Every structure is written in structure tokens, then in C-alpha cells.
């Protein structure tokens, strides 16, 4: 166990395998030579049933996942079982040593199962639990033997069977409690696993079952239940099955590596596809999230370019930073249980690397589009507010003064004391003021349709339609007022379309329809004129397209069957 973090040399693994075979052969010889406990063929078989899967599983795990301590831990567990048959020896010391280590495997099982998959215990609580298990199976065991729980042991000091039996009862109860607590821990961990992590869940199930059975075996030992042999058989079966489930899970991951190859093919076939979904499929983790680092924005975004905070790793989620030339490029957030599947992760990431730069460029493009869109919204909205303010200034300033002036001139003109010649000049002046007022009114109204703010689209359109060059059929169907920015855009669409009809269409009538359909406002202006659509697609309509699209809407100008043009705008009412 000297080098967990680097791959074991193959000769080491071979040596361990040979040692395993050697030890098993020794156990077999011992069992044949032993006359003491008449070990049956079944007992020899059961020892082999535990040792072989753990040694094989440990070797495979160490080989395939050198970074995990699970392999060495499984090997240790497997070999610890070979000390148990020493109890079959008629040699007192060998027997006593075998008996001394009789229960250590229980602590090792608990340790191995809780340490799955990284080989390390997580959290103080687990370390305390496993530490207690070692103390109970080794420390308390020694005390129990010294007190005289087993008169045949050479280590027996007190030789008081009663005290020894009580000590044994306490020991078995305590270890049963430890094992059950470990099983409960595994149960909690299993419910934390996503449904998509099926192989891992299977392994955890097998481990939990083995721990519960082991606890049951010890409890039945305390009370000397008659069916203890059956429980022992089931327990050994479960303990032996656990590493087999683990091997199956490993095999399943080997199969999953095929997904990495599939990912490569998929990315080659369509290099412009978004990466997140294929990655999630290849790693079998639908909760997987891909985020990109955009240096120009100095921030993280998701693949749609929307800002996404850099995800912090937690109990369930692991984060892998992908960089290039030391610069962060992307980050993957995935189910923590995947972290153990180094090879799969490495294979998938290697496959994804070819498309990562493209993916980031796309995310950046989308982020810029969003930025552009929102700045366009800001520009249009700022323009609208500025126009509203200007109109208001004119209304409350110049227009009022001119009205007051015309009133003053009117009063002077009405005064009988005024000289007739002066009266004529006053009338002239008043008419000049009126002309200015009319011009100013047109300017102010053009700047902002103030009637909109106070009275809404229907009233505003009524006046617009009244000023149109042709009779217009107006139909407005709105339950509630849309946001003012949307009303203004709709107003300008109608205004511009009606102006175009007056200028270019030779139409004799027009129709204006405004209605709310779900979250969108539809505005339609059509006429019975003859003009081609492109002829009427003047600069005014182009300006409108900007205004409509800035609000996330869409403007369309098309010819109508049987003559005439239809201008249609669709505006989201957010």
C-alpha cells in the first residue's frame, strides 16, 4: 500500500496473485491436515468464496484505478480472511493467533464498504465508526481472550469463563451496532446517488446487505440461535457477492468507454452541435453541466451564453476545470460518483476536447448577441423616455407660453379702447402665434404620442386613424394595457404603415387590427392598394423593424392576395 497514487507495477500484482494462490493452497492443506475442528469441505469452500473475489477484485481495482485506495483495501480484506483458518490448527500458538484475528475481517469489511468508491473515508463520523470497529474487533477481542472467553487460547490470563462470556456478549453487540450504523450510512449514500448511477447503486446495495447479514450473524451468536449455520451461509454468500457486484460495476464502466468513442464520432459528424447533451449522454449523467470561461466578459457562461456562476463543488457535485495553456476554458459539473471513474472521464474529456474551443466560441457569440440585444433594448427605451420628456417639456413650456400669448393678444384685440389699425396688427400677430402653435403641436405629437401614456392604445389609434388619408376600419381587442414600450412600438407601426398607405398605395380603404394573443400583441395594418411590398418598404419601416425587434418582436411586410399590402408586427408583452 506504499504507492496509492501511482499505478502498481505489474510484477507486484502478479506477486500478489501468486501469494493469494499460495495462501489458499496452504489453507487447503491445513484443513486436510487438521483434526481439531473437523473443518468441512463447506468451510474451506466458504473461505475461498470470500478470499478469491476480494483478492481478484482488489487486484483489478488497483490495476484499473490506481488513484483509488480501494484496491489495496480489498486485498487486505481478502488476505485477512486467510488468518481465520489458523484456528483449525492443532498447534496451540497458531490456533490462538488465528482466534485472535477471528473478527478483524468484520472491521475491514466495514472499512472497505464505507470507503467505496475512492478508498478513503469521508467525514469524521465515518472515521470514528471504522476506528471503533477496529478497536472492538482487535482491542476488545484481546481483552476478552485474556479474561478467559476462550480457555483454549494461549493468551487466556484470567480463565474466568463467565467474565469472558459477558465480555464476548458486549463485544458482539457493539460490533453489530457498528455494522448496522455502517449499513445505515450506506443507505443514506445510496439515496444521494442519482437514478442514472445504477451500477454504483448496485454495489452499494450489495455492501449494505453484507453488513446487515454480518450484524445478524453476530447477534445470533450472542443468543446462540439454532439457525446460526444458515445465517452464516447467507452472510458469507452476501460478503462474497459484494466484490462480484463491484467487478460487474467495473465491467459496466468498461462498456461505458464505448460511449466515449461514440461521443467522438458524434462530435466529428457535427462539430457545431452543442456539447453539454452529448457529454451528459457519454458520462450517463443527465445532471451534468458545462460552463465556459469567457475572458472578454471575465465571467462564466453556460452554453447558451447566459451568465452562470462558477459552480462550487459540494457533497453531491464535483467540478472539473478544463484549461488550455494554463488558461481556464471550461468547467464540468457532474455527479460526484463519476469522479471515481477516471478512465471514462478521461476518455470522454479527451473526445470532447476537439469540440471545446468551438463550443466556447459559440457560447461567446451567444453571449455577445444577448448583450447586443439588451443594449438595443436600452437604446430604444432610453430614446423613448427622452422623447417622452421632450414632448412634456414642449407641452408644459413653449406651448403654454404661446397659448398665453395668443390669449393676451386676443384680449387686447377685444378691448374697445384699442385703435382699429392696431387691432388688425394684433389679429395678424395672433394668427402668427396660432401658426406656430400648430407647427409646434405637430412636432411635439411626432416626438411622442402623449395620449398613449394617459389613455392607452385604443384612444391613441382612434386619433391616428382619424388623421389617415383613407377611411380605416379600426378594431382593437385588448383586455388590459400592454407595457408602454410595447404600446409605443405598436403605435408607430400603425402610424408608419398608414403614412405609407397615404403616400404610395392608391388605396381607398385600410384596416387596422390590434389584438392580444397569449403573451404577444399582434398588430396588423392592411390596405386595398396596388403597391408592391418592396416599394413601400421605406426607411420608416426599416426603423420600425429595429424598434420591434429590440422588444423581441418581429415585423413582416407582405403582399396580400388580390392586391394590397399587409404590415404585421408581433410584440411580446413582457
Amino acid at each position, binding site marked *: 500500500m506504499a504507492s496509492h497514487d501511482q499505478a502498481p507495477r505489474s510484477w507486484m500484482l502478479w506477486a500478489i496473485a501468486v501469494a493469494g494462490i499460495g495462501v489458499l493452497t496452504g489453507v487447503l492443506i491445513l484443513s486436510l491436515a487438521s483434526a481439531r475442528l473437523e473443518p468441512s469441505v463447506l468451510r474451506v469452500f466458504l473461505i475461498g468464496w470470500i478470499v478469491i473475489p476480494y483478492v481478484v477484485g482488489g487486484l483489478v481495482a488497483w490495476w484499473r484505478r490506481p488513484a483509488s485506495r480501494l484496491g489495496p483495501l480489498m486485498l487486505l480484506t481478502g488476505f485477512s480472511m486467510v488468518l481465520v483458518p489458523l484456528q483449525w490448527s492443532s498447534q496451540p500458538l497458531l490456533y490462538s493467533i488465528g482466534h485472535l484475528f477471528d473478527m478483524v475481517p468484520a472491521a475491514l469489511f466495514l472499512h472497505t464498504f464505507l470507503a467505496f468508491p475512492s478508498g478513503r473515508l469521508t467525514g469524521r463520523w465515518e472515521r470514528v465508526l471504522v476506528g471503533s470497529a477496529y478497536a472492538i474487533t482487535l482491542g476488545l477481542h484481546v481483552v476478552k481472550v485474556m479474561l478467559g472467553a476462550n480457555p483454549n487460547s494461549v493468551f487466556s490470563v484470567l480463565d474466568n469463563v463467565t467474565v469472558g462470556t459477558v465480555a464476548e456478549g458486549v463485544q458482539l453487540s457493539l460490533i453489530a451496532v457498528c455494522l448496522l450504523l455502517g449499513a445505515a450510512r450506506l443507505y443514506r449514500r445510496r439515496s444521494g446517488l442519482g437514478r442514472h448511477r445504477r451500477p454504483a447503486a448496485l454495489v452499494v446495495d450489495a455492501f449494505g446487505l453484507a453488513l446487515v447479514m454480518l450484524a445478524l450473524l453476530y447477534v445470533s451468536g450472542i443468543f446462540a440461535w439454532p439457525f446460526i449455520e444458515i445465517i452464516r451461509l447467507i452472510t458469507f454468500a452476501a460478503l462474497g457477492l459484494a466484490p462480484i457486484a463491484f467487478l460487474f460495476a467495473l465491467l459496466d464502466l468498461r462498456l461505458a468507454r464505448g460511449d466515449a468513442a461514440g461521443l467522438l464520432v458524434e462530435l466529428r459528424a457535427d462539430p457545431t452541435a452543442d456539447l453539454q447533451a452529448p457529454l451528459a449522454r457519454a458520462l450517463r449523467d443527465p445532471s451534468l453541466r458545462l460552463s465556459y470561461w469567457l475572458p472578454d466578459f471575465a465571467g462564466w457562461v453556460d452554453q447558451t451564453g447566459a451568465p452562470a456562476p462558477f459552480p462550487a463543488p459540494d457533497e453531491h457535485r464535483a467540478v472539473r476545470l478544463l484549461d488550455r495553456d494554463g488558461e481556464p476554458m471550461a468547467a464540468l459539473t457532474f455527479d460526484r460518483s463519476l469522479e471515481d471513474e477516471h478512465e471514462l472521464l478521461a476518455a470522454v474529456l479527451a473526445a470532447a476536447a476537439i469540440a471545446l474551443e468551438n463550443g466556447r466560441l459559440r457560447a461567446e457569440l451567444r453571449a455577445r448577441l444577448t448583450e447586443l440585444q439588451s443594449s438595443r433594448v436600452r437604446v430604444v427605451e432610453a430614446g423613448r423616455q427622452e422623447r417622452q420628456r421632450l414632448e*412634456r417639456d414642449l*407641452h*408644459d413650456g413653449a*406651448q*403654454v*407660453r404661446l*397659448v*398665453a400669448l*395668443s*390669449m*393676451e*393678444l*386676443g*384680449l387686447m*384685440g*377685444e*378691448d*374697445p379702447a384699442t385703435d382699429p389699425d392696431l387691432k388688425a396688427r394684433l389679429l395678424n400677430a*395672433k394668427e402668427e*402665434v*396660432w401658426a406656430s*402653435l*400648430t407647427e409646434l*403641436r405637430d412636432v*411635439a*405629437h411626432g416626438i411622442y404620442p*402623449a*395620449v398613449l*401614456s*394617459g*389613455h392607452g392604445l*385604443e*384612444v*391613441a*389609434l*382612434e*386619433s391616428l*386613424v*382619424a*388623421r*389617415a*388619408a*383613407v*377611411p380605416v376600419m379600426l378594431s382593437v381587442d385588448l383586455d388590459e394595457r400592454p407595457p408602454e414600450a410595447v404600446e409605443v412600438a405598436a403605435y408607430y407601426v400603425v402610424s408608419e404603415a398608414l403614412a405609407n398607405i397615404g403616400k404610395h398605395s392608391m388605396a*381607398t*380603404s385600410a384596416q387596422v387590427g390590434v389584438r392580444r394573443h397569449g403573451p404577444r400583441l399582434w398588430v396588423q395594418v392592411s390596405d386595398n392598394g396596388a403597391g408592391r411590398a418592396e416599394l413601400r418598404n421605406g426607411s420608416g419601416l426599416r426603423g420600425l423593424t429595429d424598434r420591434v425587434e429590440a422588444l423581441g418582436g418581429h415585423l413582416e411586410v407582405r403582399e396580400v392576395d388580390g392586391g394590397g399590402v399587409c404590415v404585421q408586427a408581433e410584440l411580446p408583452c413582457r
Partner: protein
Amino acid sequence: MSMSRVLPSSPSAPPIRVAIAEDSVLLREGLRRILTGAGLDVLAAYDNADDLLARCRAETPDLVLLDIRLPPTHTDEGMRAALQIRREYPTVAVLVLSQYVELGLALKLLSESAEGVGYLLKDRIGDVTEFLEAVRRVAAGGSAIDPQIVSTLLRRRRRDDPMQRLTPREREVLELMASGTSNAGIAGRLVITQRAVEKYVSSVFDKLGIPSTGTESRRVLAVLLYLRS
């Protein structure tokens, strides 16, 4: 025109009692001067709609004169107050003044009835005589719709336009009629007899196919709706 026309025609009749709501001091005081000078009784002049409404609750004036845009938001406060007064105090005549005239608002004001309603551009105040005439007409239960609304509606081109069948004189009568002028008023303006006005009016209604509506104020809405369609 002499000031004598501006003065009350019969000194024995009680003066028209007016309440004003206009947020510009210049215009508010100007209106007070014009109305007082013409012998009308200006009960109060406010810069907001709420005070005007409170005044109506205390003592109803004969006529309220109000700006369509009033504080606090300068959007629809004046219009709302006007509609509320028409609803709650049917005997109070309402004359709305505005920098713009909007057909939609005129139709809203007239929708219940055109009796005692006026909607004029502020510019009209400068033509003191005509303005006072409109004030008196509205106070007496008539109506006054700004000629600008009517002339805008008349400008448009139509297919098979029945308007083209009107003589120039009939057209003048139509415009005056739509802005709320009474037959007597039209007669005075066009210097013809009232009898002649009545003939022109029925001829216009015939040619346009508008059903004859009887009262002078009701025909305002009928003509406006006709012109709009």
C-alpha cells in the same frame, strides 16, 4: 367685433358659475380674467383635479373648465375627472381644454350624451369671442367639439364619397354642425336665416344617409361617427 358682445347679454340673468382646473398659472389666471371680464362668476381656480372634485361635492358650479393633463402624472387625471363629473353631477357642464385634440377622447366624452360637453384646443382661448360663445353654449347644455377634429375627418379620400355630393355651403353647415354649433349659431355665422339652415341640415342628412336625430347636441355624435367610419 365689439366688447359689447362679450358682456352679459341680459344683466338680469344670474351669471354662469364656473370652476377651473388648470396647472399653468399663466393660463389659469388668463382664463379667470377672460371669464370674469365677460361677466361670468369664477367660483374657484385650482391647479389639480382633486380640488375641483371636492369643490363639486361642496357646491356644484354650472360649468367646469379643465385641462386634460393635470398633476400628478399629467396623463389622464383631467379626463378622468371630467368623466367622473359627468357621471356624478349630470347638471354640471364640462368643457375640456387640451394642447392636442384626439378623436378617441372626444368620442369617449360624448359617449353618454353630447349635452353640456365641450372639448377644445387651448388655442381657441385666444379667439376670445368664439371661446366665450362656446363656454356659454356648453353651459346652456349644448356642445362644442374642436373644428380641428371635424376638418381632419373631412380631409380623407374615399371611394364613392358621398361628401362630394355636398355643395360647398352644405359642407360648411356640416362642419359647424359637427362642432356643436346650434342652428341659430350657424345662421349667425353664415349670415343666412335659421329656416335656410334647417333646409341645409336636412339636405346634408339626406345626402349622407344619416338618420335625423332630432336635438342639436345629439346630431354632433351622429355626424362624428359618420365621418369616422
